[in-house]
């Protein structure tokens, strides 16, 4: 009998894991909240079960419901994806207790990595440079911790990553509201409102190292990723190799990550995050999960990271050994339901239609399908476009082409930001840091405004002409006329 895997997640990462199951001959069991019932991960799974509500606490954070489905569907293993319960040691322990293989680090390692201060101390003791920071703090303790560490600093969620619950604080006055927002977000995203404080280096690069470790003591680093293009601590673009990183710094980071993974007794896929500031680097934290940006590593190494997670979870040895050769260059752009022309605020609505890119060097990891709803309940990430090229310039050229082919009908996305970033001289030179995305606001217009006037007028004229048609759902109107156009004009 094929192993049966419950995928305790949604969206593009659930689709990614269904695909890994197919590739490995495993049976994929999906779960869905009411609003996700037509989701791509549901349609692609071998079996799919309903969760009781839309709110994360009722659905993808709902341990009791997930474990009950696992029992009813007779699954052998649970893959948590990223976010939600991925780094929750209680969930991993509850899976173990129910005799389910948790596809990720063991509960003890999750607990260890979740205690950011302890991890930092252990790695510092092992000779790895770290940034000053605190352990989980109460609101009352936070001020003293902040003053000890110094401003600017970050409030970060202890219970998970992915940029949720991170707030930059430049002064004591900003502390109370940052604490409030960070705790609120952390509670919604991970069901855990603990936060800690960490020094922030403006102008540094955010570089992380992908590691894989098996239960037999083998550890391998699979190159680094530069994730410095961030907005509100949400990564927007990631690439591997990191441009302009000296080979001595690269070696230092890979060795620190492999060494750190051994020190922590790490198992499964994980990421060691660093800030690189000139010739200095500082360990930040371990992301004890598969990450959103894992495909860039897959494209330059050829390794199926989710496949290796399953191997490790079944107790097998890793199929790869260091040093892992890297071929060419890969870049990922996140297509999120955030409007860059409106402060990157969330954009919700129905996806009426879509165009996804393809062709040479392009991989698409997407949860999009016509008719799906983008709601306030979940992460805004809709799809990832990943480009590979023999050189960084080729990867950028392909990505520009692919992003221009990407369209989500009915919801504003980060596509315009990517068009700008990929065309920016600083990005193209590789000399960018975590401040880069902030320059979006100060960008100079490029396009020809006459085209906008012509487009608007043609739109208004067509819209006026269409008004004579029978009225339709407000949102469906253009979809309908578009289809009629196609039929009429043949």
């Amino acid at each position, binding site marked *: 009998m094929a192993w049966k895997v419950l995928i305790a997640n949604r969206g593009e990462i659930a689709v990614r894991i269904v695909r890994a199951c197919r590739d490995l001959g495993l049976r994929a069991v999906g779960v869905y909240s009411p609003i996700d019932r037509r989701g791509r991960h549901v349609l692609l799974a071998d079996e799919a079960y309903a969760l009781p509500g839309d709110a994360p606490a009722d659905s993808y954070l709902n341990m009791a419901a997930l474990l009950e489905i696992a029992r009813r569907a007779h699954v052998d293993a649970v893959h948590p994806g990223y976010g939600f319960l991925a780094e929750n040691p209680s969930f991993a322990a509850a899976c173990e207790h129910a005799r389910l293989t948790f596809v990720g680090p063991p509960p003890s390692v999750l607990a260890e990595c979740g205690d950011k201060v302890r991890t930092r101390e252990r790695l510092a003791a092992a000779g790895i440079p770290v940034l000053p920071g605190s352990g989980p703090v109460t609101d009352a303790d936070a001020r003293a911790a902040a003053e000890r560490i110094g401003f600017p600093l970050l409030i970060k969620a202890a219970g998970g990553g992915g940029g949720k619950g991170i707030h930059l604080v430049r002064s004591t006055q900003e502390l109370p509201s940052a604490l409030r927002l960070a705790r609120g977000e952390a509670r919604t995203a991970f069901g855990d409102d603990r936060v800690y404080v960490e020094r922030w280096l403006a102008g540094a690069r955010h570089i992380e190292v992908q590691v894989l470790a098996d239960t037999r003591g083998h550890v391998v680093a699979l190159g680094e990723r530069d994730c410095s293009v961030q907005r509100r601590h949400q990564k927007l673009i990631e690439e591997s190799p990191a441009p302009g990183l000296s080979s001595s710094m690269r070696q230092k980071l890979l060795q620190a990550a492999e060494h750190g993974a051994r020190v922590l007794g790490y198992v499964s896929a994980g990421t060691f995050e660093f800030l690189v500031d000139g010739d200095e680097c500082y360990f930040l934290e371990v992301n004890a999960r598969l990450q959103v940006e894992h495909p860039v590593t897959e494209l330059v190494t050829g390794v199926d990271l989710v496949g290796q997670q399953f191997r490790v979870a079944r107790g097998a040895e890793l199929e790869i050994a260091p040093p892992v050769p890297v071929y060419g260059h890969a870049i990922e752009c996140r297509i999120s339901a955030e409007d860059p022309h409106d402060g990157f605020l969330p954009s919700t609505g129905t996806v009426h239609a879509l165009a996804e890119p393809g062709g040479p060097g392009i991989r698409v990891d997407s949860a999009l399908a016509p008719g799906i709803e983008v709601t306030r309940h979940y992460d805004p990430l809709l799809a990832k476009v990943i480009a590979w090229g023999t050189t960084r310039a080729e990867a950028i050229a392909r990505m520009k082409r692919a992003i221009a082919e990407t369209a989500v009908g009915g919801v504003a996305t980060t596509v315009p930001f990517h068009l700008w970033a990929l065309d920016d001289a600083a990005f193209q030179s590789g000399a960018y840091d975590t401040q880069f995305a902030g320059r979006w606001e100060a960008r100079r217009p490029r396009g020809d405004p006459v085209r906008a006037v012509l*487009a*608007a007028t043609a739109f208004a004229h067509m819209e006026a002409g269409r008004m004579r048609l029978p009225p339709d759902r407000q949102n469906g109107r253009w979809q309908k006329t578009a289809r009629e156009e196609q039929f009429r*004009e043949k």
Partner: protein
Amino acid sequence: MSDYDVTFAKEARTVTVREAGGGLQLTVEGHTHEVALIPWVPPTHFILLVDGSSTPVVVMRAGEELRVTVGFDQHRVRIARSVPVPRRGAGGGSRSSEVRVEAPMPGLIVAVQAQSGATIEQGAPVVIMEAMKMQMEIRAPSAGRIRSIRVQAGQEVSKGQVLVELAAETTA
């Protein structure tokens, strides 16, 4: 033939539209262009053909405004058929001392921090909202007295919905 008043970057122009063959002829500032707007990804994405040359554009209606994205630029365009409409400044200075604090995004009201009747400072948090795992404090755009609170915690709001009405301390 139809004339449109197109207001863009605070300048009004007249664009004349003629339907010709399968497409449109648009005349703006003395230049005539062959234009077609071909649905690409409905309802928002089109291919704009101008004199045979092709550009993807995104057109979204936001109230009385059209937001037209060409490449990474977004242009806000107001457009009306030939009969001139009274100009309204885009978000420009209302003389009324009443200020409506609107939701900048669709989402959930997590907490209401303002109290009806209270006097608050400019920048004071009035409401905390949440969408897509991001929380945000909505702050008072000016100092004043809270006239009414229109939402409560746990309520879903749409973008632009009025959260709080404020009698602003007029500094004018």
